[in-house]
């Protein structure tokens, strides 16, 4: 059987915002979604500690019951699950969403509630992928991604609550305290 080689990726370039973004894209869950409504906020920081503007950040998540739109028939229709935004002039991003539920992982394990994150930025030749977790989930101990990463790297994937309904997570591309990325 023919085996095709995947197309090579190229940098997103500086001029994509009009091509890729609409205003509603940072709203991941509508007002009628079940669960705890939160803001997911953060900053993108490069190796030198500088804030990066105009980076494209995408998230993908389950609903409050841990079900994925389009995959699970019973998923909450008010949770689109997908969000996309651009970092602003201060390197900041913000999504409006609900806290996802834990969902099944490999074998009989459970994955702690998490947001899958994809990041494109000028200067990166391809997308980088990681996850954001909350600090207070009982499933953190058994989560397969965190276990594979080991304690130190796993810490870089845990957000912090800065108010009752605001989860903050800064993405550090490199250098001290750099976010652990996952090979996709």
């Amino acid at each position, binding site marked *: 059987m023919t085996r095709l080689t995947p197309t090579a990726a190229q940098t997103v370039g500086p001029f*994509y915002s009009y091509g890729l973004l609409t205003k509603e894209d940072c709203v991941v869950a509508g007002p009628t979604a079940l669960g705890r409504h939160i803001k997911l906020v953060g900053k993108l920081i490069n190796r030198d500690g500088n804030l990066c503007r105009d980076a494209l950040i995408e998230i993908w998540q389950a609903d409050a019951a841990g079900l994925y739109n389009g995959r699970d028939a019973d998923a909450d229709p008010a949770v689109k699950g997908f969000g996309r935004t651009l970092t602003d002039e201060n390197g900041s991003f913000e999504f409006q969403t609900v806290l996802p539920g834990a969902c099944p992982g490999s074998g009989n394990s459970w994955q702690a509630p998490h947001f899958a994150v994809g990041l494109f930025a000028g200067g990166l030749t391809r997308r980088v992928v990681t996850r954001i977790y909350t600090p207070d989930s009982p499933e953190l101990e058994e989560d397969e991604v965190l276990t594979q990463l080991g304690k130190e790297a796993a810490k870089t994937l845990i957000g912090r609550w800065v108010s009752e309904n605001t989860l903050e997570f800064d993405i550090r591309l490199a250098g001290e305290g750099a976010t652990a990325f*996952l090979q996709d």
Partner: protein
Amino acid sequence: MAPDNVHAIAPRTATELSGPIFARSADEDRNLVSGKGGQAIGSLMRLKVRVLDEDARPQPGSFIEIWQANAAGKYQHPQDQRDAPIDPNFRSWGRGVVDANGEIDFITIRPGAYPVPNSGGWWRPPHIHLSAYGSTFLSHIITQLYFPGDPLNEIDGIFQGIPDPVARERLVLKPDADSGIPEAALGFRFDLVLRGRSQTPLEN
């Protein structure tokens, strides 16, 4: 640059094996050249994109977005500060969902080359940016499509940044009369291959 802190391979759980579903958008979203005041300036072309997986199976439902400069090499973007004309009849982006054969086409113009600021004379060759989302969160790729035979391709730092000449060649559009419109628009084809569910990690 590539981040140096890749610590683990993403598993293949519900998170990675599901992904956003994009609504079909309006037909007008695939036509970049029909402005209120008439047709955009430039060499009209129709671009037919086909999305396949590594087993050459069409990937219906994939979501394609393109964006590009106008015929003068000018982007409709506040950060493009160059003194080149904006074409009011050209819209710099297109989007849509591929059909059951994995295909979608766009009507656009051949973009112009443009200088990279503060680069000592580097001009980007004409190119079209493309984003493709397959059926899973992991199957999202952004890349750039180039025109065959353009001399600037040979000296472009971004195109030549892909070391493998065969991989570079795959980013070059193929002239194709059947994709064109007789006596109106040049035809070009582009086959995009997304990594499948059994994908092995890319060498970087």
